């Protein structure tokens, strides 16, 4: 595995890019750090969605796992006082992954619109429960206390910032590794022609199931990181179908080109949102919707394809 990773160009650039970010992050104002944290946290979920998209599936219900991750952290904090980052991540990813495993048995048989609708239905089931049940916070949600690392409670948010960077970098590399293996390479093959993949001897349903569980765990981690960075969870910001819509938007905007793309997309989205709110608080949904349409029409392979084009041009000119 290390052999593959060391030789892979994307992995090297990813690690380098994140390292630079971690170092420069120390000098950035806190609000920039916050936005970067939120953007990268979302990028984790989008990474999982991107894997599904390469398989030809779009899930309109990933807010389910995002919410499970976030609420797992919040509830563990409220009832058991768990504040350690490793425990929290483990809980979040574990719960989300487990739910993904169970639901995956059902979902792996569906395609296109039905897959989207069924995943939407499951996420709205959770939303309905959270909103109505008082013990789960109803529409208020919960606050999340500060995160500790193996007993030490850090002074500033910079530690959490680095932790999120590490998590993102590790996930990106792991997914890249997966995509390079035999089963991972099947991803786009399944999108193109399922029947042929079956003839080759692979089980499409199992492959999709596996990818689904990965994306669920990643979304769970993403929700957990978001909860830790923000300090608050509530159903409308984390489980409602509009959250799934946002994640899908970032997926489409970033494009399926590379494992770094989701994180770039997430960060761009976060800064876009901050500035849109300041400049035009009643028009930011318009901006998101317009951007989505523009991307679907003019840049269907997302922002990453734009970046690739620039680099290729640079490469060929030098």
């Amino acid at each position, binding site marked *: 595995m290390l052999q593959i990773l060391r030789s892979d160009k994307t992995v090297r650039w990813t690690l*380098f890019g994140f390292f*630079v970010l971690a170092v*420069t992050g120390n*000098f*950035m*104002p*806190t*609000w*920039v750090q*916050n936005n970067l944290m*939120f953007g990268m946290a979302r990028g984790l979920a989008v990474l999982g969605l991107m894997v599904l998209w390469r398989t030809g599936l779009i899930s309109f219900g990933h807010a389910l796992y995002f919410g499970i991750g976030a609420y797992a952290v919040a509830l563990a904090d409220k009832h058991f006082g768990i504040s350690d980052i490793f425990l929290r991540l483990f809980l979040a990813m574990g719960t989300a992954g487990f739910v993904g495993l169970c639901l995956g048995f059902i979902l792996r048989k569906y395609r296109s619109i039905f897959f989207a609708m069924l995943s939407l239905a499951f996420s709205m089931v959770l939303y309905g429960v959270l*909103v*109505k049940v*008082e013990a789960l916070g*109803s*529409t*208020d*949600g919960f*606050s999340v*206390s*500060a995160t500790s690392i193996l007993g030490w409670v850090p002074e500033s948010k910079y530690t959490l910032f680095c932790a999120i960077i590490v998590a993102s970098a590790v996930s990106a590399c792991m997914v890249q590794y997966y995509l390079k293996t035999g089963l991972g390479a099947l991803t786009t093959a399944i999108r193109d022609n399922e029947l042929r993949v079956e003839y080759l001897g692979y089980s499409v349903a199992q492959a999709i199931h596996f990818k689904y569980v990965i994306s669920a765990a990643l979304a769970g981690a993403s929700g957990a990181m978001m909860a830790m960075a*923000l*300090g*608050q*969870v*509530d159903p*409308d*910001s*984390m489980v409602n179908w509009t959250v799934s819509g946002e994640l899908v938007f970032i997926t489409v905007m970033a494009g399926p080109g590379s494992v770094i793309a989701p994180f770039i997309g997430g960060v761009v989205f976060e800064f876009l949102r*901050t500035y849109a709110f300041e400049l035009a*608080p*009643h028009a930011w949904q318009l901006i998101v919707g317009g951007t989505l349409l523009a991307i679907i029409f003019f840049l269907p392979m997302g922002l990453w394809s734009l970046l690739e084009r620039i680099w290729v041009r640079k490469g060929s000119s*030098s």
Partner: protein
Amino acid sequence: MHKQFAYKVLRSAAIASAVAAAAMTGATAQAKDTIKVGVVSFLTGPAAGPFGVPGKNGAELIIHAINKGELPAPYNTKGFAGATMDPVYTDEAGGNSKQVAEYRNLVEKQNVDALIGYISSGSCMAMAPVAEELQMLTIMSVCGTPRLFEEKLRSVVFRTQGNAVGDSIAAARYMTEMFPDLKTYTGINQNYAWGQDSWKFYSLAMEKLDPASKASSNPQFPKIFSGQYSAEISTLSLDKAEVVHSSFWDGDIEAFVLQALVRGFFEDKKFVSVVGASAVDSLGKKFPKGVVMGTRGPYGLLTRFDRSRALNNWFVDAYKARYGVYPTGPSYQYAKAVLYYKLGMDKAAAMAGKFPTQDEVVAALKGMEFESFGGSVKMALGGGHQAIHEVGYGITTWDKEKKAPSATDVKFYSAECINPPEGTLAADWLAQGMPGAKC
């Protein structure tokens, strides 16, 4: 070639962050003649019209007056410890997570000196931990959940508005005094902290004040901002209970009243509205008469044409002149919070002999007692951070001469009558039968 590119990236990143750091340090130097304060209220959505905008207007009016030193004596000194306030009006809408992000933005990007506001109990509960984390002075002006200080004491969070305990106990006392024959009650409250707490404390109080009273087994808790209550109205109509308690505020109370009015709801049930006066003002003559209405304190409908005092008279006249309508509860509540901040700043400046630090202001604000527009406010609970004041109820009617909505049989209950003593949880105090209540 890769190395060259890498160097380029690293260099530009270093330059960029250095520039950013320089820009940031320049902006945080504390000025002594202006202070920047975030004022947060609902500027969009169903809560804006009845609550958010009047609140913002109340704050705006009094900030303007204080900056110029135009308040009646003894508040006519200029500014906040001499400094002019530059308010940053922010929208409270969008959910708690969004508000937390906004709060961090205001503190870390816009570098405010303090925050005043917050209407929804959900917002207050979500902001308090963040305020404590960032150690930013926050004066909460409206929200009503007692959990804010009962769950945990706070060091930099204050609230100038009494909580749901006082509102609910006053309502229960009013009902048992005015309508002792109505024994059964039910409720429709929004399903979040404020609604849940209002119902809880109303039932606890009723249980103690009239042991023969009976709560319905099916009180309604629709989602906040739902706007559609036909099924809930059907359920309430079927319920045998004679009294319906509701802590609905914002656009929900207007929607509920309109939908219930068509179905003759108010002819069959006695409606107790803890804070629905905004609907009275907007619906005017259409608002049903005979509703038991509260305003969460000496404001608006219950004190509009009484309570002649210099500050109240000035406020009512100035507000009407500037905005064309009379001030309502939220207008008073926001103005009160700003006034409190001024008093704290002035007191701290006098004690320190210079422009006060945040710690000095916090120490000055703690436990303060001051004369507000309609009555006095004592920061008596929550370690000196939670206000108590009188709360009143009245019965809605239409005044034909003044051609305005009005209230009859107005009764006020003093702060010590409806609030537990410092250090006792409200639920416990009620369970013990409210020992030491001075009514």
